[in-house]
């Protein structure tokens, strides 16, 4: 498990990181390193240089106001999972963070790194889609804000350009959120992960979103599930019927040695129903 040769740069600021990404050929960003370094040890990834942003100050931490949460890119999964602010403003996000990998991964891995990597088995992407997250990134053309639905393009692919660095995530406050996953017994990646958000007005479902990761190459929003719940009170039967439509959004489901595409779609239905029920119950 010896990686191929690479240079190492430690950026003291975002500006320096952006500048290094623009000037050093083949450079990759590293923060927690829990996706990139194992890939380098297997020589699946062979970057010629690393730009380490792990020690840049001011990129870590969670703040909240009545609109929602602002989470710095270097905030670890363990911090998100344990945060009282997150549990209160968006419990589903704390559940997604707590479901990632194992203790070591959660203590090192960062939210910005996970989003930029966009692994199909990652837990955050489905949650970001369902919870309506906005991602802030800084690049050579300055700062921009990206909707989660624009960020995730394809397997291991985002809309970020080569010099852009994620600096933070904003997530609207939503009590009615939940995340549930079926964990791969070896890797702990999501075989299926379902994030659900339900908001109610006067007893009727006013807003609903379901994000699914692990099933397809890139996390998706399950539109038909949401549509079939809105405008009426959520009850068990309606949730079951709605969750049964999750497969309509999962064309291109992929399988592996552990679980076929077909079984993943089945699990997605089960988890969508359970996640919707939990989210609806929290929404009140």
């Amino acid at each position, binding site marked *: *498990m*010896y*990686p*191929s*040769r690479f240079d190492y740069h430690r950026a003291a600021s975002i500006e320096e990181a952006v500048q290094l990404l623009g000037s050093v050929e083949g450079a990759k960003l590293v923060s927690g390193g829990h996706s990139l370094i194992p890939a380098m040890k*297997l*020589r699946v990834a062979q970057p010629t240089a690393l730009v380490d942003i792990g020690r840049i100050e001011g990129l870590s931490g969670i703040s909240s106001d009545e609109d929602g949460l602002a989470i710095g890119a270097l905030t670890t999964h363990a911090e998100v999972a344990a945060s009282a602010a997150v549990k209160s403003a968006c419990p589903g996000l704390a559940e997604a963070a707590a479901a990632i990998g194992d203790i070591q991964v959660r203590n090192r891995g960062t939210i910005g790194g996970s989003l930029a990597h966009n692994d199909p088995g990652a837990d955050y992407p489905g949650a970001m889609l369902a919870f309506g997250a906005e991602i802030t990134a800084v690049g050579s053309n300055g700062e921009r804000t990206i909707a989660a639905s624009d960020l995730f393009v394809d397997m291991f692919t985002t809309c970020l350009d080569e010099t852009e660095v994620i600096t933070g995530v904003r997530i609207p406050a939503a009590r009615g959120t939940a995340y549930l996953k*079926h964990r*791969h*017994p*070896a*890797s702990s*990646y999501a075989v299926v992960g379902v994030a659900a958000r339900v908001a109610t007005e006067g007893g009727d479902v006013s807003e609903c979103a379901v994000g699914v990761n692990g099933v397809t190459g890139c996390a998706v929003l399950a539109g038909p599930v949401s549509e079939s719940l809105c405008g009426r009170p959520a009850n068990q039967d309606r949730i079951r019927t709605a969750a049964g439509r999750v497969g309509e959004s999962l064309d291109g489901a992929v399988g*592996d*040695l*552990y*679980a*076929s595409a077909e*079984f993943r779609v*089945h*699990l997605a239905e*089960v*988890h969508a129903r359970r996640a919707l029920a939990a989210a609806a119950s929290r929404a009140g």
Partner: protein
Amino acid sequence: MGRYVGHSVKRREDPRFIQGKGRYVANLELHGMAHVAVKRSPYPHARVVGVDSSAAAAMDGVIAVFTGRDFADGGCGALPCGWLVPDTKVPERPVVVTDRVMHVGDSVAVVVAEDPYTASDAVEAIEVEYESLPSVVDARGTTDADAPQLHDGIEGNVSYYWKLGDSEACKQAFAEADETVELELVNQRLIPTAMEPRAAAASWDAASEEMTVWTTSQNPHPIRLLLSAFTLGIPESKLRVISPDVGGGFGSKIFHYPEEVIVPWVARQIGRPAKWVATRTESQMTDSHGRDHVTVARLAMKSDGTFTGLDVETWANQGAYLSTFAPLIPTALYITLLAGNYRTKGVFGRVHGTLTNTVPVDAYRGAGRPEAAYLVERLVDLAADRLGRDPLDLRKQNAIRKEEFPYQTPVAFLYDSGDYDRLMSTAAANADYDGMRRAQEEAREEGRLRGVGVVCCIEASGPAPSAVAGSLGSAVGFWESGEVRVHPTGQISVFTGSHTHGQGHETTLAQVVADELGVPLESVEVVHGDTGRINFGMGTYGSRSACVGGSALVRSAEKVRAKVVKIGAHLLEAAEEDVVYDRDAGRVHVKGSPDRAKAFGEIAFAAYTAHNLPEGVEPGLDFVSFYDPENFTFPASSHICEVEVCPETWQVRILRYVAVDDVGKVINPMIVEGQIQGGVVQGVGQALTETAGYAEDGSFLTGTMLEYAVPRADLLPGIEVDRIETPSPHNPLGVKGAGEMGTIAATPAVANAVLDALRPLGVKHVELPLTPERIWRAVRDAQSAAA
């Protein structure tokens, strides 16, 4: 029970392990040491058209690149197989291939470099031109007419065919049966997954022409023998093999591997010490794998439930080559166990040892015995289902009675001792079996899938009488050596041919010797794992170290005692028959006069000063014994597992796991409990999570821990362990093997529990591992068949 034997003495080796002071091969740093890396085949089967190593050889820090031709021309012999049943056809296994790769991971070239990073870079820089050839990975499919022929002269890819039992009695049992049940199953391929990957290092002394090899082996002496006689050609007198601290083996470190030859050959070639350490991926794709059977079997019975016949045909995947003991596992360690714990008369089994384009398969914890137990115990549950009987009750009806021991089975073994009825009753009482069944009824009424799995399993441990092993195909003997060397101060060095790589021999063997001689545990040091210090040894596998290695030490201690008595009597000016050896106090005294005594240390000192020895007695106090067991020992177990299966995600949750084992007399209850627990976890791994996967095209799908699912702590609740003891009459300690019973019993216990849970849904069988998807599909199939 002695002063030490029978007590949970804390493991003396643990302080160094838990403080990071263990000394493993990978820790070894030798002056001027070079690093070795191996170029491996990505193809399951291909002709090697050419190897271009020029770019690699030109890299800074690369010392040399060698190809298969260099090793063949440089005197490396093919890796031999040490167990050949009649008419075995052995495919040649070169250390590094010259013209054809036979499995993914087969070695093609070797890089030697100044550091492991450069060695890895150079491996990537080697260009190999392959011409892909058709491949086959399936144990039975490889015998199909349209399967590629893998080796010249090995027709149909069958290396051997072996059968045992009374086929006429078996036929008659089926002809006269009231009921029969049939089962076709796969016992899936597993990766042994020791914590420490394999490693080898070597140092050549050009002046003395002596080679020292460090290797992660469970048996350094047989490795020295194979290196000397077959692969490296250095005389045993000039070859020292050291197996220092080793982080687990589970069987996979018994065998002679190519890298053990490559590294010393390189060290001699370049005149510098060399070292190779496997990556985890190399371990997963080149350590010998376990299991991999396809079996068709049927059980005949009378309407009252009496088992009368068992007919088994198995295709055992041996991989691309025959690993060191490969043919032993599905023959003399599998077919011989098919009688299980039952009185079935007409048992007949046959096995086809087949060759494929996969990693060689050899012993993995349990080795043949788990395959037999899983098959027999599944059939018994199917029989109970067919007859409408309680599975525990049916087992008790057919179990060998305690008064029938020694019990001759129809498949060669003579079981030594046991009390299977008490074993099962104890398990049932500990589990509250009736309460479990009531809870199951209630759960079913609520629509929950609750299951209870019960098994009664047998193991043959402590191989083996050498003459019997020889008659069954072994090229070596299976005795063990044990030397007890008393130093002049009375301190004792114990030299054992057994090897500890997690078992705790430094504690348990010291307990045995300290009690035999009546000396403090602290004065006994156990030495193992070094051919330069131990005269010879057969090593550790098959749960043999206490049975065979411990017995050798008892024999040597007896010889020490006899000489101590002789010298002690002389010093006490008494006749030999008038003194006694007091094993509680560690001294010799005159009968009836405990005050007229000589302490063990005094007598040891006298043996070395030799100022006043009895006539004809040589100085010194050092004895070695070579103990050849008169039979295997036969541990048994009854385990009960309670599960619930989620009817939506189809995940299995183990609610309780109750184990009752009979491993004979116990030297250290804490260590035995740990062995049972660890074994159970590995057996549950086979039942629920583990499978070494090959795609149909021969590519290997489980090369990392991202894909290969070893069990995690949260897979199991606390394991409730208990024992009964029926001492083995076949060794002086009365012990039976304890290392593998848990693994053997756990797989069928969990499988029976899950299938019991699924019974209301009409599911009769699901292949291992019982993943949610496999269960989901089985339920769906059963429901559509019922519709």
